[in-house]
């Protein structure tokens, strides 16, 4: 029988956590240890990347050589467009992912701490927001934000145009925020209730317990899932092409149009888009898993 710490303890967690120091906590679903995606990506040997590239590149050669415009021409076209696609296209995806992550993290921390607030009302509001944004498809949130938010604001007499991509950033931040809110809540709740009780019996206030005892302990545990969500977010950035934001997929389509839309262009251009995302997310995943392993040993 343990004391109830509002918002923090789930029944009987403390007993388990004490008996099974790290494993039970880490394996519980939704806990910060839940890194399925990164574990996946990171467990790939580097040579497989090369293999994938080779496969993607080799496939169409078999079916090539139909008309005058050969697969060779198509790859030549890709080579010409490559610098443009990377510096104007993929760079935009990266910028969007950085900004989204910054906003999403700030919102997620606030929402997550509300979820373990002693006030039941704050907990309920935070829970509802978290669930709403976590459970709706990213694309739906993007559409709603893109179409309902104003495209210009008037401050006094000056009119400020809001570029599409800032709205896209905001739209993507919502699900990121909700998922990071769950990461924060899970991390706080993964600290055994014994820690709260020991601090309480030493007359710490709730704020002191949270900031001095609990958060320092679970900060490290939040880093790997945070990076995991970054990778997932990065993979979601091509969605903004559906709303006309100029990023890799949009520019790839424009480039193919400029090359007269030969069907031979499709495999190299979309194949390149697949590969560059793989190449970007793969090291992040490796790093995430390395960090998680290191922190797990320390616990």
């Amino acid at each position, binding site marked *: *029988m343990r004391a109830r710490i509002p918002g923090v303890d789930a029944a009987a967690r403390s007993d388990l956590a004490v008996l099974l120091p790290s494993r039970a906590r880490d394996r519980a679903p939704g806990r910060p240890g839940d890194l399925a995606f990164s574990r996946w990506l990171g467990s790939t040997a580097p040579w497989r990347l090369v293999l994938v590239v080779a496969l993607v590149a080799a496939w169409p050669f078999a079916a090539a050589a139909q008309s005058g415009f050969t697969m060779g021409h198509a790859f030549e076209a890709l080579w010409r467009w490559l610098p443009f696609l990377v510096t104007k296209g993929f760079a935009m995806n990266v910028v969007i992912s950085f900004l989204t992550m910054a906003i999403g993290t700030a919102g997620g921390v606030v929402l997550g701490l509300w979820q373990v607030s002693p006030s039941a009302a704050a907990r309920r509001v935070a829970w509802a927001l978290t669930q709403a944004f976590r459970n709706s498809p990213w694309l739906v949130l993007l559409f709603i934000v893109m179409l309902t938010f104003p495209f210009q604001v008037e401050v006094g007499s000056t009119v400020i145009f809001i570029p599409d991509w800032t709205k896209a950033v905001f739209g993507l931040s919502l699900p990121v925020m909700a998922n990071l809110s769950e990461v924060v809540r899970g991390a706080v709740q993964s600290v055994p209730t014994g820690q709260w009780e*020991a601090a309480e019996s030493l007359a710490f206030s709730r704020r002191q317990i949270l900031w*001095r005892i609990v958060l320092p302990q679970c900060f490290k545990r939040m880093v790997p899932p945070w990076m995991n969500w970054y990778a997932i977010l990065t993979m979601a950035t091509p969605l903004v092409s559906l709303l006309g934001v100029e990023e890799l997929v949009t520019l790839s389509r424009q480039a193919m149009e400029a090359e007269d839309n030969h069907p031979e262009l499709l495999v190299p251009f979309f194949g390149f888009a697949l590969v560059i995302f793989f190449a970007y997310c793969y090291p992040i995943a490796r790093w995430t898993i390395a960090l998680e392993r290191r922190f797990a040993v320390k616990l």
Partner: protein
Amino acid sequence: MSSREATMNGPDWDPSQPIVSIRDVYKSFGELEVLRGVSFEVMKGEVVCIIGPSGSGKSTLIRCVNALNSIDSGSIRVEGQEVHDPDLDKLELRRKVGMVFQQYNLFPHKTAIENVMMAPVLVLKEPKGEVEARARALIRKVRLEGKEDSFPGELSGGQQQRVAIARSLAMRPDIMLFDEITAALDPETVKEVLVTIRELAEEGMTCILVTHEMGFARELANHIYFTDRGVIVEHGPPATFFTEAKDPRTREFLSQIL
């Protein structure tokens, strides 16, 4: 410190009255009745042991004394101050009641000495230098010189438990609660923890222990309470408690454990 004592003591408490007085306490967790009318008193400087089979409510009882658990009815007074009072300043109460747990509950991200210093610095707002000197003295007192800068994970169970005791003492409590503090330890490290508690008792600290160490209870306690299913079945000074137990439940328990 003088202002603190003035505000903390209940209006009509003087040291000749019980320092802890528990009257007719009831407590249930949902359907489960854990305490069903428990009463007893502890005088300043006394060492009281609570024994009994697991699930008899003894841990819950002492957790109610520093308001980690609430009670449903009855009264618990610490230095004349009602604990079962919605307006109670829990932080004030916890400054004068120290508690040590079965699972130590040291803060794993802080070294031994930081664990000891944290509460006086953050809660009592005492100057760091002063607290550090006191913390070093306390670490010496629990015989852990040289372990000041070790993290809890680097210490044995017995060592961790002694740091936990020092951590509580750093708040200069009037009463110490010990909740089965040797239950998770290896037999050989139990002794070093018990030695520390004996010294505390000899210095006149008021101690309430929930324990399974019968030899220890017999040697050190002024009074022993036996609880079963939420009530105190039998109590008495150790001299008579172990030899002249009347209730069949007490005798059965003692025959199993001794």
